[in-house]
């Protein structure tokens, strides 16, 4: 009886609504035609609508002021939408419902790939190459543009900031205290981590410290480097391989399993989010974590703010060297702007993109809004309370443009760390099948590391499942 009813209701609802459906103008499914902006000389007064995830003020009002500041500096009429959460959902909804934005901030390359395949992005090659600002290698090093190229070799985005790399970050003061050197090999690393665990580096008389803590698999890149293994996909002779799922990874997982078994590794490494890992590091509970280069400075600065005489000293460390001398570090996906195909004011967007990479734009993106986040007087620049809380990060903590010098000295340790990133870090290859592959790899890798199953079996399982699902060749 009830089944019949449900069926009836479905049919009725369907028919009622199909009529509504027919009359609905399908703007969403017809190809979006951008209102071709007349090639006017001046963009003054033109509207510019931005959807951003990181760029902008820290609060709703701060955000309005931020948009106003862009308007003032570019002569455009700017609205800046910065959703408080669910950014991915917002972007998706906006794009597919035909909402019009001139600029959208994107922070991962897999998205760029998807946007390319789904007709979202517009070709910016000509714009970038003819732009005085953007084509200048001092503003953005020429090689960097490769990151933002589509499969057809054209440029589809413009950088929003400089993206760093992740690396092992070690307690330099603990090393010094225990008379240890920065490790170069896996065995040295083991000795050091063991010492962090057992020799009471924080001097509180309790064995409450760990050698190493991580959060997620990509954080172990600095250590996996010693076996020459790079995370995600690597193409070998046109074939997709996943180094973390090869036999060469077995001894590495065994090494981690040993750390876990001996209590040297934080046993929460599987459930840790990055915040927890950071907090352990900041509270003297662990001697080494793997995290962003920018955070070396943050760690040192935070501890200094708490206690000016702190012994705490974090330092970025180069990844372990493989037998053949290679060093693998993980570069973060770039943070960049795209101009969607349905952007009503692409010219205004382009004007913004140039502005964003000049000194004024960079000051806005880092320090924030004048008089709100910082003030300028006879003594030069100084940060307000609001500005201090924002930590000189309004979407652009670091930038490419080498002609723009930071107005404040870099936080301790960060320059050295960033130098390492620039020298060694490379992007990971994220193919569209990666999300499915990642599930399999992380699942077994973590099990092997936690000692829940032998590393050999784990890798075998990985390979079997990856092959079966046609995720590797």
């Amino acid at each position: 009886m009830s089944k019949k009813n449900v069926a009836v209701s479905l049919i009725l609802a369907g028919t009622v609504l199909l009529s509504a459906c027919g009359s609905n103008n399908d703007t969403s499914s017809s190809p979006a035609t951008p209102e071709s902006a007349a090639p006017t000389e001046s963009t003054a007064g033109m509207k510019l609508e931005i959807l951003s995830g990181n760029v902008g003020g820290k609060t709703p009002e701060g955000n309005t002021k931020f948009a106003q500041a862009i308007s003032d500096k570019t002569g455009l009429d700017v609205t800046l939408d910065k959703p408080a959460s669910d950014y991915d959902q917002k972007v998706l909804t906006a794009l597919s419902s035909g909402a019009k934005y001139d600029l959208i901030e994107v922070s991962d390359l897999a998205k760029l790939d998807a946007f390319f395949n789904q007709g979202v992005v517009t070709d910016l090659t000509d714009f970038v190459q003819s732009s005085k600002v953007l084509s200048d290698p001092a503003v953005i090093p020429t090689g960097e543009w490769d990151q933002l190229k589509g499969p057809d070799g054209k440029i589809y985005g413009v950088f929003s900031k400089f993206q760093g790399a992740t690396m092992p970050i070690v307690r330099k003061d603990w090393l010094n205290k225990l008379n240890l050197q920065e490790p170069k090999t896996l065995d040295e690393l083991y000795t050091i981590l063991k010492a962090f665990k057992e020799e009471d580096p924080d001097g509180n008389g309790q064995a409450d410290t760990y050698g190493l803590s991580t959060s997620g698999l990509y954080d172990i890149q600095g250590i996996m480097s010693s076996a020459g293994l790079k995370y995600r996909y690597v193409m070998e002779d046109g074939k997709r391989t996943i180094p973390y799922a090869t036999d060469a990874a077995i001894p590495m997982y065994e090494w981690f399993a040993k750390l876990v078994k001996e209590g040297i590794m934080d046993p929460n490494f599987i459930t840790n989010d990055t915040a927890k890992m950071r907090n352990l590091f900041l509270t003297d509970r662990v001697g080494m974590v793997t995290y962003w280069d920018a955070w070396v400075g943050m760690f040192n600065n935070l501890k200094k703010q708490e206690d000016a005489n702190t012994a705490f000293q974090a330092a970025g460390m180069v990844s372990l060297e493989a037998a053949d001398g290679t060093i693998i570090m993980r570069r973060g996906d770039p943070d960049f702007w795209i101009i969607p195909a349905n952007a009503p004011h692409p010219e205004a967007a382009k004007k913004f993109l140039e502005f964003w990479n000049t000194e004024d734009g960079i000051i806005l993106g880092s320090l924030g809004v004048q008089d709100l986040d910082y003030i300028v007087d006879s003594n030069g620049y100084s940060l307000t309370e609001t500005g201090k809380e924002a930590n000189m990060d309004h979407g652009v903590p670091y930038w490419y443009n080498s002609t723009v010098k930071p107005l404040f000295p870099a936080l301790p340790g960060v320059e050295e760390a960033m130098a390492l990133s620039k020298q060694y870090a490379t992007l990971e290859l994220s193919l569209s099948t990666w999300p499915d592959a990642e599930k399999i790899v992380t699942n077994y890798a973590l099990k092997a590391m936690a000692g829940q199953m032998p590393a050999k079996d784990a890798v075998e399982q990985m390979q079997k499942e990856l092959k079966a699902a046609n995720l590797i060749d």
Partner: protein
Amino acid sequence: MDIERLERRGWRNRTFDVLNAAFLILLMLTMIIPFANVVALAFSSGMASMKPEIILFPKDFSIEGFSTVWNSLDLRRPFMNSVIVTVSGTILHVLLSSLAGFVLIQPHLPGKKFMISFVLLTMMIPQDAIMIPLYLVNKDLHLINTLSSLVLSGMISGFSILLMRNFFLSVPYEMCESAQIDGLGMFRIFTTIYMRLAKTGVATIMLFEFVSRWNMLSAPVLFINDSSKITLQVALKSMITDASATSSNLLITTNVRMAGILISIIPLLAVYPFIQRYFMKGLMLGANKE
């Protein structure tokens, strides 16, 4: 009944009462601990709040978390918006859902089963699946960037309709019939008899709806861009979201985050006793024994 049996029963009753209370207290403890943890973290200093050892008591007592939230956000406007959306949305929700619930208790109403199915089916729709079309509906009705879109979002729910229907079912239908004979219109019967007798039910739905509306997050994020129209939850969320996924420099200390959470639920805790009065009354009536 002989005295001995009565005494035995009294003794058994007391044992039961003690065990029962112990059970409840134990359960309450499990619920107090997380809450106390949030409070303790909120009242700790920034650095201390990041240490794992804080469980029940704040360390390095400080209201720095609250002052950070307070100084960086002008909460008046978002608070008012939240109140407007929550109050008007809840009233409409309770009224319309009750009305539908009332219709669905009518015996021999042609099409009733269809209507029940119609209502039930709406509850099976996953929000993710209809997010984009829902946005389009709001856009076509020019509701984007209006508080109305938030009032309309979830203005009626199958959940509440079915619950109200259930509460109305416990009112003897003869009352409806005799009121009809007295010449009362159906609408009057609904307001004067049913809404009044099912007061407990109304209070329950009201509480449920109030809470979920107050905590509503995804609708305002999707439908509102204008910073003068955002709700309290969104304002707080914008402040306490930690962009830890990228190499961002931003650090939001745990105390600030917890302070934000506390600020957002205090109004709910404040409203609760008022609504509770209604079902306590009902409860006392129902359970007034021994």
